[in-house]
């Protein structure tokens, strides 16, 4: 130990050698990290420079005419494919219109589509997934067959990206396998496939309409939801037919979809559905009618306020509120309804929408007709035994005049409050 402390002996030599070895390893690792970082930065800088050289030609190409080759400043070098892809993908994010079509043409002519299709056959799943993703962004129908095949890939990520890519391509050949996937709930998430089809818009509606008669019930239900989400006018005739389908679930969802689409010509058919034997259909029909810009359904919605099911009554009241001033007048009229449920539902909606508050404020109005209208409504509320609402306001309303008038209506003795 003494020799070690004096700086000599085999132990001292060993510790010194160990210290130098560890130091050398750390120095080497540090050098590797620094060189790697410098190399990456140099490479990125070089790529940025090369991108700036290539970009103007591509920008001119997308807004111009003629093949991509005539816009390139020089033939593409090895490794520049990724730069070109990035330029087009970045442009696709901020620009719409013919730019996408021109980009697709360029991807096909420069052989990028063929290369990505070849990468769909890679042994590594992440390479296949990346290729499927890129093919979706390229949007080339040339990749359809390969992507349809990739929908059966053993890796779920590849299957999903292939499905999304087909949704971007939007041709009937690309969309038909997605519609079939909707039918196969074991292998595909219906929500995910429906989301892709919704993204494809009206192109998907045509295929769904064609395939609809041969679909099983669960797929039909999903298709009806998709029609509503896309708000497709093309689907209206089918949705109207479905309002009288044997399946209550289909009738209810068709009613909801017709409301989402918002075509007022669907109102008479939806009014019929207010008398459906299934309460779910009646509730959805009431909700849908609330979304249509028409007034002919108002008396029918008033009748629906007396439905035996609370959900139907609530949706009918909400629908009347959505009709605006004329709907509110109808709700006020329902305070006289002989059916207690209908009258109470009307009270609740008038309260929720703030109409009762404004009527109570009218008790202090200067003009007689306004005050008279408010008094009449208050009298109806008393008759309906909804004095709970008025009593609370009689105690807490900020205006002394209104507190006093409500107290008179209710026959209350109020404690004196500051005016």
């Amino acid at each position, binding site marked *: 130990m003494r020799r070690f402390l004096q700086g000599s002996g085999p132990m001292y030599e060993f510790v010194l050698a160990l210290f130098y070895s560890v130091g050398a390893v750390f120095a080497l690792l540090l050098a590797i990290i620094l060189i790697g970082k410098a190399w990456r930065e140099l490479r990125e800088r070089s790529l940025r420079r090369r991108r700036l050289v290539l*970009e*103007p030609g591509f*920008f*001119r190409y*997308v*807004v111009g005419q003629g093949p991509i080759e005539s816009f390139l400043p020089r033939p593409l070098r090895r490794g520049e494919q990724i730069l070109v892809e990035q330029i087009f993908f*970045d*442009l*696709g*994010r*901020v*620009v*719409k*219109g*013919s*730019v996408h079509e021109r980009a697709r043409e360029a991807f096909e002519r420069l052989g990028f589509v063929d290369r990505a299709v070849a990468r769909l056959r890679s042994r590594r799943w992440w390479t296949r997934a990346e290729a499927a993703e890129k093919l979706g962004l390229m949007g080339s129908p040339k990749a359809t067959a390969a992507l349809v095949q990739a929908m059966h890939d053993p890796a779920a990520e590849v299957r999903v990206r292939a499905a999304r890519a087909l949704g971007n391509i939007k041709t009937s050949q690309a969309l038909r396998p997605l519609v079939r996937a909707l039918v196969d709930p074991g292998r595909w998430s219906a929500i995910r496939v429906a989301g892709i089809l919704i993204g494809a818009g009206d192109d998907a509606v045509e295929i769904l309409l064609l395939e609809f008669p041969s679909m099983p019930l669960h797929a039909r239900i999903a298709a009806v939801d998709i029609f509503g989400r896309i708000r497709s006018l093309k689907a209206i005739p089918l949705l109207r037919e479905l309002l009288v389908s044997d399946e209550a679930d289909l009738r209810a969802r068709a009613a909801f979809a017709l409301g989402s689409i918002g075509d007022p010509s669907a109102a008479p058919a939806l009014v019929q559905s207010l008398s459906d034997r299934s309460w779910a259909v009646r509730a959805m029909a009431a909700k849908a009618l609330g979304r249509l810009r028409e007034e002919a359904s108002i008396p029918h919605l008033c009748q629906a306020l007396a439905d035996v099911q609370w959900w139907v009554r609530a949706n009918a009241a909400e629908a009347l509120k959505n009709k605006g001033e004329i709907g509110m007048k109808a709700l006020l009229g329902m305070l006289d309804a002989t059916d207690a449920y209908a009258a109470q539902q009307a009270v609740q909606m008038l309260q929720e929408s703030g109409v009762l508050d404004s009527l109570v404020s009218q008790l202090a109005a200067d003009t007689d007709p306004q005050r008279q209208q408010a008094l009449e409504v208050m009298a109806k509320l008393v008759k309906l035994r909804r004095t709970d609402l008025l009593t609370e306001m009689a105690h807490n309303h900020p205006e002394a005049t209104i507190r006093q008038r409500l107290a008179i209506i209710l026959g209350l003795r109020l404690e004196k409050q500051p005016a």
Partner: protein
Amino acid sequence: MRQHRIVVADDDPIVVRFLSAILKDEGFDVRTADDGEKALQAIQEHHPDLVILDLVMPYHDGFEICQRVRAAAETRQVPVIILSMKEKEQDALRAFEVGADDFVRKPFNALELVARARKLMTGGRG
């Protein structure tokens, strides 16, 4: 004839480079800025015939820059187009309230934007 001058301000570099390239090809003299501060500086120095502004930018947003353009005597008549990625209807209304001449949503149609720019510069403010 004097070249029309345009200031394009957007914090998304691809938008700036793309618009700059296609507007230059159309024969316009284009200056670019990637934030609100630089946009104000470019407008002051460049005396543009048109300003294209992104709505959301660092330091000053498109609304604020548009208000300042309208407030200054020397730029009061300069047409302004506001570009926005947002879907909100209120943004378009606010853009017109602060004095913008046009409001274009991203993704935008490049050729349509060039046509709008040309119309605003040759036809003056509406």
